[in-house]
């Protein structure tokens, strides 16, 4: 257990527990679970299920950020892949639909990676280009409409269940394991962390830093595409206008809450996904609370700050000092 969740995960776990407790207070039935049509049903499942897109995005994003990059285009890529999947769903089989949608994500990632690694653009503007244009491409595919489909295979991807667990959750879990296996099972993890920690030094040590950067953007594109397919499958339609809108910020937030520095280097996949869960636990809590929606953003701001402060070593230092001061006075 300690191997999986390093000691630095403590703050995140604590934050999650606190938020869960608050959720339990605003909604007494928060932890209730029951089986409904072979599918677990309850707020906890909602948290997992709704957290899936951001969790998937954060899996790619955390690698990008580990190389000192950032990927603003993931929301747009979601829209593109969702649009492609929805347009093909009723005329093609699931494998082709998935291949096309994920292929599109891969191409998007390749484009981002090309701009950053080969042309040397700053990641934030490089991916801003696709953030703007990508949503346009998605709308071009759907012509601004919500393209609906009824292909049972694709619908299952959004609403089905495996062993009681919603399919999206199973997919996210699978992706986490897959990404973890690829990154930590090969030397990729080390080389990515080295690239992010000091690109010049890594290059001189023989690390193919460009290839690393290209690879992480590609992976981010693929993860985003998968998230897009799931989002489309969830509502049985592709909403190119709104799918993934502003989710890039949530994904970045998840990564940072997961303790990965925006300045690159060390990263943790598990904690990034944890970050996504923390965000969603908060969102679901807000929805359950019954407060007017005008308060949503204020609550979000407060929680984000609190979670970050909890992680800051300086904060614990200061808190400790305050305690000691009180101790000496008493």
């Amino acid at each position, binding site marked *: 257990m300690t191997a999986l969740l390093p000691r630095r995960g403590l703050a995140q776990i604590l934050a999650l527990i606190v938020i869960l407790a608050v959720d339990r207070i605003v909604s007494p039935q928060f932890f209730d679970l029951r089986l409904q049509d072979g599918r677990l049903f309850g707020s906890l499942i909602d948290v997992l299920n709704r957290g899936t897109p951001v969790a998937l995005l954060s899996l790619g994003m955390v690698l990008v950020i580990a190389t000192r990059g950032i990927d603003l285009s993931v929301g747009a890529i979601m829209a593109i892949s969702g649009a492609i999947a929805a347009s093909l769903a009723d005329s093609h089989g699931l494998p082709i639909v998935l291949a096309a949608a994920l292929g599109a994500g891969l191409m998007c990632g390749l484009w981002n990676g090309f701009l950053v690694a080969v042309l040397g653009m700053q990641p*934030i503007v490089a991916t801003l280009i696709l953030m703007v244009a990508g949503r*346009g491409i998605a709308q071009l595919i759907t012509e601004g409409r919500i393209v609906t489909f009824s292909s049972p295979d694709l619908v299952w991807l959004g609403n089905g269940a495996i062993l009681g667990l919603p399919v999206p959750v199973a997919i996210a879990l699978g992706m986490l394991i897959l990404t973890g296996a690829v990154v930590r099972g090969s030397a990729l993890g080390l080389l990515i962390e080295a690239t992010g920690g000091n690109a010049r030094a890594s290059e001189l040590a023989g690390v193919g830093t460009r290839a690393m950067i290209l690879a992480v953007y590609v992976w981010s594109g693929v993860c985003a595409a998968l998230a897009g397919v799931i989002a489309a499958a969830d509502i049985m339609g592709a909403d190119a206008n709104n799918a993934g809108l502003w989710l890039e910020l949530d994904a970045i937030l998840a990564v940072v809450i997961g303790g990965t520095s925006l300045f690159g280097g060390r990263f943790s996949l598990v904690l990034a996904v944890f970050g996504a869960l923390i965000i969603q636990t908060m969102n679901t809590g807000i929805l359950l609370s019954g407060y007017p929606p005008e308060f949503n*953003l204020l609550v979000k701001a407060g929680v984000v700050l609190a979670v970050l402060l909890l992680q800051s070593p300086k904060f614990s230092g200061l808190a400790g000092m305050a305690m000691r001061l009180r101790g000496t006075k008493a």
Partner: protein
Amino acid sequence: MKGLPPVLITAIVLVAGFALCAVQFPNIASTRVVGNLLTDNAFLGVVATGMTFVIISGGIDLSVGSVIGFTTVFVALAIERWGVPPLVAFVAILALSAAFGAAMGAIIHVFDLPPFIVTLAGMFLARGASFLLSTESVPITAPVYSTVSDFALRVPGGGRLTAIAMIMLIVVIGGALLLKLTRFGANVYAIGGSRTTASLMGVAVGAMTVKIYMLSSLLAGIAGIVFSFYTSAGYSLSAVGVELDTIAAVVIGGTLLAGGQGSVIGTFLGVLIQGLIQTYINFDGTLSSWWTKIATGVLLFAFIALQQGLVALARRPVAMRAGAAS
């Protein structure tokens, strides 16, 4: 021999782009359109100036769009509902936004948290606060507003240099001077070069961080006032997403997100380049929503690629010397 400075290259790119647009739509080459470019992008120019300081210091400020939104709502309510004289309302909101920026800067410094996230929380907070003030848009009818928004120096050819355009130019020039000529400016570059080194060299990094974010929020407040003049209203959803436009303008203007390098004039040119892209698309007028987005992306790419290509070309002889120095 030294090669062209990046700012000059950005200027060349802007002029070349403008000329190309004018070839296709001769109407673009008029003082009217140029005047509009300044007026329409006035608030962006003001926030981008503040953002330049933040980014050069190695930080980022995502809260500016929300601060603009909050400012418009606050000003509108203060003047229309609470009966506060406009000038007093301005002073109050500027004080408030400066304090807001200072608080973000203090949190960033004291708790050593990433600016991206602290200002993201700031973005939620300011937007949420403006929802609390009012979710509907509030028109401002105070006479100052019509006076100011109607005031304009007329230039031959139908062009108008409006009051808000002038405010923007003053802020840009003031910002450029502050950055280049003062100790404060030098310290901004120093912190952007390296926080620890700057601190070891005796720069009061904490105080600087507070001041830099304070400046950014203050200018966002001014931009909010400019925006309220622009629209004569306060609206909680105004300026959504402006932080990204601002960052793009700053970066197109040649400022490095890593910090330590950049200029306010470059940022100003970046704002104009973005405005030009928008104008071009409006003039075209045949683009659907999606083609508008795609065209914006393509043009953004074209400008940045062109600029980077030119910079690389200009740097070539310099690069060798720089390489030689390593």
